[in-house]
């Protein structure tokens, strides 16, 4: 275990210490981890030199777990316990999964998010994702030779609050410090923006294994704005496999296959599809269970023909996204191709034709998201303080509240740049009403029943008044990860009630702890050790941050007694760090955070002033 580095009092940490940080593409089909090494973003391989980790987890009765290729290989033989495409279930309830009946899984409905029954017990999608993330984390720590300070994890741009929260919870469960959740198309653009110094409007066309996403971004001077997103959550490489599969059945006059045979032919279909990227034709051969032989020739032309409607199906959401952004295909300066399925020549052709230009292919479409995430992770870890790097993202779906008659009142419209806060006032509708229930939803539709329910809570203790007299102010705050918190306040008659909700699917710290306990069957002492370690890391981070700040501004922004108070707080934290009590470390962290609050505020004011001064100087020059 790496030891926590603590500098001498008054000395800040070494200025050029490289902090280990990674970018993770947690994909539906495949996941990857990348990092910036000697200024270059690279994907980290497994011990067999393979960059991809299939997003497949298999649970065994003895509590052990397979992740990746070995799990994928057993998918057809052990379908109940082998979880594929778990990303589809993140932050989703049973009623959100229209095709749940067609899968091999035994779902357990539970409030907020479905769970899956396996031989190793009931697993939440968060736990399954955490198992994938843990493998990537281990891979990275082995490759980089140290503990990670954090990770940037990518999510589809359209992911709602529940799905984002679930992703963040999975990372926490895997012991990763999440530096930021980043939209996948933004990550892809980051990868291209830096390598090719791209500016202007770009389209990111992402066709993966089971999903299609199109995003329209505006890139300029390091700012990445998402102008619009659209897509089809049930369209991807799997559908192309299926078309070939159907073609095989038709050509070989097969029907009513055993599941084993069907699985085999689907695998053959996928192999044929992937081979057709580099060959004009391929032979499809298979021996079925009953000894029946399949031997067919599939040409690129036939493949293109039987999948034409699928290719066209990606163009409708593309048009819609452009319209949302108020743009025409000609306005798009470049098209970034993401996802393994964009390797198919018919996709390349169709996209090229639609946009009237060759799509960008310089970066590997499988890796581009992870590469971009790694670049952002490197910035957030503080390894690049030199430049004016800035990345602005947006909230993908509108946030609103339920009002009378099951209607939605939008509070924050989609595509608002984050972080964002908005307040809305509501009133009572009955005389003497003393409580009000607040229902937070996300989505674009007008009826509450058509939107996603995020949280419900009650505001009590409203003083009895005539209808319409109370003034209840509900504030939504969305942070830079796109995560929401809501507070409500009654501000009449000097009475204030306020509550902060965490949306209902989000895991509480207790639940995370419970999952950690059950997943690792840790003894109490291990839990204690873990908590202690977490607080030590947190304390180290805080001391480093404050000392760096003191080094920059301590002399100019603080008077002697203020300085002494902060120095005292740091010394006290160092003191409790010698001990083994995680609670007292936690308390002292909070205290130091509090003590340094004013200093932080002054530094921020100074930064803003600096921004404006720089601006005015520029103007004088012109």
């Amino acid at each position, binding site marked *: 275990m790496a030891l926590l580095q603590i500098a001498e009092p008054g000395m800040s940490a070494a200025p050029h210490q490289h902090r280990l940080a990674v970018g993770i593409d947690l994909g539906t089909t495949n996941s990857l981890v990348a990092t910036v090494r000697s200024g270059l973003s690279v994907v980290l391989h497994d011990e067999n030199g393979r960059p991809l980790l299939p997003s497949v987890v298999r649970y065994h009765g003895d509590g052990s777990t397979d992740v990746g290729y070995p799990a994928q290989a057993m998918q057809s033989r052990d379908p109940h316990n082998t979880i594929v495409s778990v990303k589809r279930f993140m932050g989703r309830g049973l009623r959100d999964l229209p095709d749940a009946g067609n899968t091999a899984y035994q779902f357990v409905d539970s409030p907020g998010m479905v769970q899956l029954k396996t031989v190793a017990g009931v697993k939440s999608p968060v736990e399954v994702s955490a198992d994938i993330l843990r493998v990537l984390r281990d891979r990275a720590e082995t490759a980089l030779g140290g503990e990670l*300070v954090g990770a940037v994890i990518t999510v589809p741009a359209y992911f709602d609050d529940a799905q984002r929260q679930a992703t963040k919870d999975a990372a926490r469960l895997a012991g990763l410090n999440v530096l930021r959740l980043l939209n996948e198309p933004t990550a892809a653009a980051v990868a291209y923006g830096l390598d090719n110094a791209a500016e202007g409007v770009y389209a990111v066309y992402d066709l993966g294994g089971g999903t299609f996403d199109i995003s329209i971004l505006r890139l300029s001077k390091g700012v990445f704005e998402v102008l619009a997103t659209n897509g089809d959550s049930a369209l991807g490489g799997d559908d192309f496999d299926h078309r070939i599969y159907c073609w095989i059945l038709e050509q070989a006059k097969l029907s009513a296959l055993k599941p084993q045979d069907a699985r085999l032919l689907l695998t053959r279909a996928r192999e044929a599809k992937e081979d057709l990227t580099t060959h004009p034709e391929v032979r499809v051969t298979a021996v079925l269970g009953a000894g029946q032989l399949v031997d067919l020739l599939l040409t690129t032309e036939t493949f293109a023909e039987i999948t034409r409607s699928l290719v066209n199906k990606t163009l409708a959401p593309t*048009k*819609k996204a452009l*319209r949302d952004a108020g743009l025409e295909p000609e306005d798009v300066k470049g098209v970034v191709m993401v996802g393994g399925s964009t390797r198919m020549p018919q996709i390349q052709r169709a996209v090229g034709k639609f946009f009237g230009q060759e799509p960008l292919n310089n970066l590997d479409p499988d890796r581009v998201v992870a590469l971009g995430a790694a670049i952002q992770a490197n910035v957030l870890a503080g390894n690049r303080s030199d430049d004016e790097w800035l*990345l602005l993202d947006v909230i993908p779906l509108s946030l609103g509240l339920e009002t009378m008659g099951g209607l939605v009142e939008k509070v924050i419209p989609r595509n608002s740049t984050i972080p964002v*806060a908005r307040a809305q006032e509501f009133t009572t509708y009955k005389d003497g009403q003393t409580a009000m229930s607040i229902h937070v939803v996300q989505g674009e539709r007008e009826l509450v029943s058509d939107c996603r329910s995020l949280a419900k809570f009650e505001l009590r203790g409203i003083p009895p008044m005539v209808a319409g007299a109370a003034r209840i102010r509900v504030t939504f705050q969305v942070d*830079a990860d796109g995560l929401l918190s809501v507070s409500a306040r009654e501000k009449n008659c000097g009475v204030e009630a306020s509550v902060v909700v965490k949306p209902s699917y989000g895991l509480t710290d207790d639940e995370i702890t419970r999952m950690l306990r059950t997943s690792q069957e840790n003894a109490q002492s291990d839990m204690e050790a873990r908590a202690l370690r977490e607080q030590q890391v947190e304390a180290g981070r805080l001391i480093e941050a404050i000392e760096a700040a003191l080094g920059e501004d301590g002399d100019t922004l603080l008077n002697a007694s203020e300085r002494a108070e902060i120095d005292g707080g740091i010394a006290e934290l160092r003191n409790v760090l010698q001990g083994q009590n995680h609670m007292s470390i936690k308390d002292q962290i909070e205290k130091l955070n509090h003590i340094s609050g004013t200093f932080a505020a002054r530094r921020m004011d100074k930064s803003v002033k600096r921004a*404006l001064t*720089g601006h005015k100087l520029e103007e004088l020059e012109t």
Partner: protein
Amino acid sequence: MDFNQNFFELFGIAPAYRVDPIRLEQAFRDIQAQVHPDKFAHASDAERRLSMQWATQANEAYQTLKQPLGRARYLLHLNGVELHEETNTAMSPAFLMQQMEWREAIGEAKAAGDVPGLEHLSAKLRAEIAAQQQQLAELLDNDKNFQRAAEVVRELKFMEKLREEINHALEALDA
């Protein structure tokens, strides 16, 4: 943090309807480059919280001032004129007449599936909105006639609704 600072002050630009969009955007970026949470991902809790509040404020200010209507509303607010858009719907008969004509034309084109017709209406509407905005600039920056400016803002809101209607019709025909 000084939340009493108005949005124009935050960006260091003069309070007016006519603003240089490039300068506004530059000021916004300069501020975000200093306060954005990405700069504080490994800072103390206090700094992270402040950074989020500042970045939120800068976003809010930029979104408000970037859009002509938002800017006009905000200027009116700074000058003590509230629009009460939800309750005050009294419009001049001439304007209402015009609105009805627009609605009819859009409805007919939509029913006939007339895409070029809708596109023509859209261009005409854009021109009218531009003229209204020109007038708004005069009223706010030169004449300081805030009462009349408030009326124009309310009218513009109706025009924006028409624009949405045309876009929806075009989208429906496209699908």
